[in-house]
């Protein structure tokens, strides 16, 4: 696909014939004598500097990823750096130079993220299944530690040094120090007075008050006795005496079994990412595994989820449709009323009418939340003369309230686009209708409405898609409340799909985290929104304008 202008460009520069064939790249040989790489123009220097900064940051990320053993991030970053350096130093990829920055962000923060949602939807990622199997085993071993019966109590002091907190303890007259990552080792020249460790070279002995302040940290600290994990670790409850703790669980790597040594029970890993004993009991910490369609089956099949899900889905559609229809009707009504040249101060009136649109939407929602407050809100106390209407706690009233707010926030937008559409209605149409004796209503129904609808249809569809996921209005006004009484998931009467996903994910802190189910619900929304978009694109025919 060569563009026709290229040969014209090359010819005047006196390129040797035969080299000026096709493609923008072919203009380069003609210009080579004055190449920017030789003249070191400002632009070239800026490019080199920018690229140097990007490379430096990139290499830093690669090294950090190496240290953390995050190989996914490492390889993604390496790939990005290679492509970036190639794109900006070759002469063959001019379009890529312009597209690359945006595409890099797009790939990481949108394409990857959407794809990752697809992956998480098929896993049991969430509380209890947060990490890898290795981490789960580590956590289980640590959780089941018990003081080893019959071992001696060591005199102990909490010390602080460069690696953080550590323990110093007296063992056979010698002071030994260790911290979370490093087993106990002898420290010469430490001072012990009256059975209390007072000085340890290289460490500060924490005074009593400081220990109390960091009580939780001290209680959680485990200092390995030796390099062998089987020897157990030192822990303390009172910061004075340390005891050897050992896990009652051992992990048999070869058989892949976790064994509870206190009762001999063997736990084997199961398909759900848990260790399971023969009698079916599972251990609380599991790991992430793919669970196939389980999340979708749960969302649609399990009545605890499916009943609220379908209620929420229905309300989401009703909310989005009514949002568009009501705001459109109100906006269009005002547009029709003001669409008369004889009205004075039309510009001022229009500017005043779009005030709610200029006011940031999320603040409008919060503002209305206060105005709708049952006890002190201005609507109950002033407008309705002291009525006691619990706007936001009754399922129906709350829905109406949300729509009322939506109309206030959204009508100026519809007013604007309808005003635009009205002004493009040919005057002779109106005149002809008048001559035919059409009344006002008839004219509105048969001429104005259809013409305005045709002009604004694509905008109405995108407005529908937007409101379908209007997270802010629900979260800011009702937070999805009032809650469904019968649902075991934290969703309510005004929740729409995206706020339901927010609640189910547990990221709002209201419930146990369940990223898997939340992602599965996201996928459902993706499908609905994509369908709407396809319909919208068909109508606007963006696809045809591509070429």
């Amino acid at each position, binding site marked *: 696909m060569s563009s026709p202008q290229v040969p014209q460009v090359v010819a005047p520069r006196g390129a040797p014939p035969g080299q000026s064939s096709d493609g923008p790249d072919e203009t380069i040989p003609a210009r080579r004598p004055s190449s920017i790489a030789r003249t070191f123009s400002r632009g070239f220097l800026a490019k080199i500097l920018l690229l140097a900064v990007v490379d430096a940051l990139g290499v830093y990320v690669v090294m950090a990823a190496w240290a953390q053993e995050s190989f996914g991030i490492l390889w993604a970053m390496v790939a990005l750096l290679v492509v970036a350096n190639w794109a900006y130093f070759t002469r063959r990829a001019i379009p890529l*130079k312009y597209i690359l920055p945006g595409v890099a962000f797009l790939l990481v923060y*949108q394409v990857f993220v959407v794809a990752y949602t697809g992956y998480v939807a098929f896993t049991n990622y969430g509380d209890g299944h947060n990490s890898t199997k290795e981490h789960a085993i580590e956590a289980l071993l640590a959780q089941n530690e018990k003081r080893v019966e019959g071992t001696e109590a060591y005199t102990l002091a909490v010390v602080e040094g460069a690696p953080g907190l550590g323990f110093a303890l007296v063992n056979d007259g010698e002071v030994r120090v260790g911290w979370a990552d490093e087993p106990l080792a002898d420290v010469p020249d430490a001072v012990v007075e009256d059975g209390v460790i007072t000085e340890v070279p290289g460490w500060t002995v924490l005074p009593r008050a400081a220990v109390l302040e960091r009580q939780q940290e001290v209680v959680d600290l485990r200092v390995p006795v030796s390099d062998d994990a089987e020897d157990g670790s030192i822990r303390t409850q009172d910061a004075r005496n340390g005891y050897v703790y050992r896990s009652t669980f051992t992990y048999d790597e070869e058989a892949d079994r976790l064994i509870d040594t206190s009762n001999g029970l063997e736990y084997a890993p199961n398909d759900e990412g848990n260790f399971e004993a023969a009698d079916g009991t599972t251990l609380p910490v599991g790991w992430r595994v793919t669970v196939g369609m389980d999340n979708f089956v749960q969302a649609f099949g399990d009545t605890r989820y499916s009943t609220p899900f379908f209620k929420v889905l229905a309300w989401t559609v009703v909310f989005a449709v009514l949002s568009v229809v009501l705001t459109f009707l109100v906006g269009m009504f005002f547009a029709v009323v003001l669409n008369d040249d004889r009205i004075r101060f039309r510009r001022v009136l229009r500017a005043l009418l779009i005030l709610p649109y200029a006011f940031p939407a999320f603040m409008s929602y919060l503002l209305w939340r206060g105005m709708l407050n049952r006890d*002190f809100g201005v609507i109950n106390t002033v407008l309705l003369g002291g009525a006691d209407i619990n706007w936001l706690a009754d399922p129906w009233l709350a829905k109406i309230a949300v729509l009322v707010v939506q109309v206030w926030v959204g009508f100026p937008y519809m007013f604007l686009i309808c005003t635009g559409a009205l002004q493009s209605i040919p005057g002779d149409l109106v005149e002809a209708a008048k001559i035919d004796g059409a009344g006002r209503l008839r004219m509105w129904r048969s001429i104005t409405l259809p013409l305005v609808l045709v002009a604004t249809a694509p905008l109405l569809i995108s407005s529908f898609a937007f409101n379908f996921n209007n997270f802010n209005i629900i979260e800011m006004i009702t937070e999805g409340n009032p809650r469904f009484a019968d649902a075991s998931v934290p969703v309510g009467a005004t929740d729409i799909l995206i706020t339901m996903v927010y609640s189910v994910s547990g990221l709002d802190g209201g419930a146990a985290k369940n990223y898997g189910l939340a992602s599965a619900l996201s996928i459902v929304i993706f499908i609905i929104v994509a369908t709407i978009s396809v319909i919208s694109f068909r109508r606007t025919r963006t696809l045809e304008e591509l070429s």
Partner: protein
Amino acid sequence: MAVDTMTRRSTQAAVAQPRMSRRRWWSELGWRYVVAALAVVYAGAPILYIISASVSQGGTLTGSNRIFATVTGANYAALNETRFWSWVTNTMIIATVTAIGTVLMGAAAAYAFSRFRFTGRRVGLTSLLVIQMFPQLLAFVAVFLLLLSLGEVVPALGLNSRLALIMVYLGGALGVNTFLMYGFFNTVPKELDEAAKIDGATHAQIYWTIILRLVAPILAVVALLSFISSFSDFLLAKLILQSEENWTLAVGLYQWVSDRLSANWGLFAAGAVISAIPVVLLFIFLQRYIVGGLTAGSVKG
């Protein structure tokens, strides 16, 4: 055209009948003024109320119910004892950087798609169209998880970092805006580039000195829409910015209202009035562009 016809018609009517009868005036124009007055009251009352609440004494919800009963700056002064101003700074930095980044990256991509013919161009445009159908906001769980792992490697790109939030917003930039810009770039005649090329301009010179100047209106629209969308974003900001000093206005004001609404009302009102001012001003100055941008297919909440 249409306006012309209508003006002509009304002048004709005026010539034929110099003064409308009172009845006719009412049925043709008078009621329009009444409706317009009601509409202005409807649109303006809540805004008037919040301004009044912001200058009311006591700063409670009840105390704000009598419009302009008292006028005091107490609520505004009280903002200094909160983290409000750091939220303002955070929001401005995040929204401005996002807007600039969005414009730069979107314009560059639109330039490439509009001016170069290269392998993969059609595929690229089509994939952008498809990607556009999957809003980033819906994948917020995955965004959270991605930042969780990124943060373990580079804390500045992980949770509770403003830079990370900006990067996430920039990730959504291309999908939303490229088409808007692409269409506009196509309206700039190619002959201009060609003339410059003949004069020896490089592609970079053409981009920076010719094209970008000619498409300034669409750059303004995209910058404004991007500014407003990151200004109003709540979900991602709330998930990513965890400690209070990093919050944006949306997160902070939400916290005030959702937690002890009545007591914080004055603070919220004063904060809202202050933070609405820049946005309202932007709207008034760029109104012309916005209306154009709106009809090009962008929606604000």
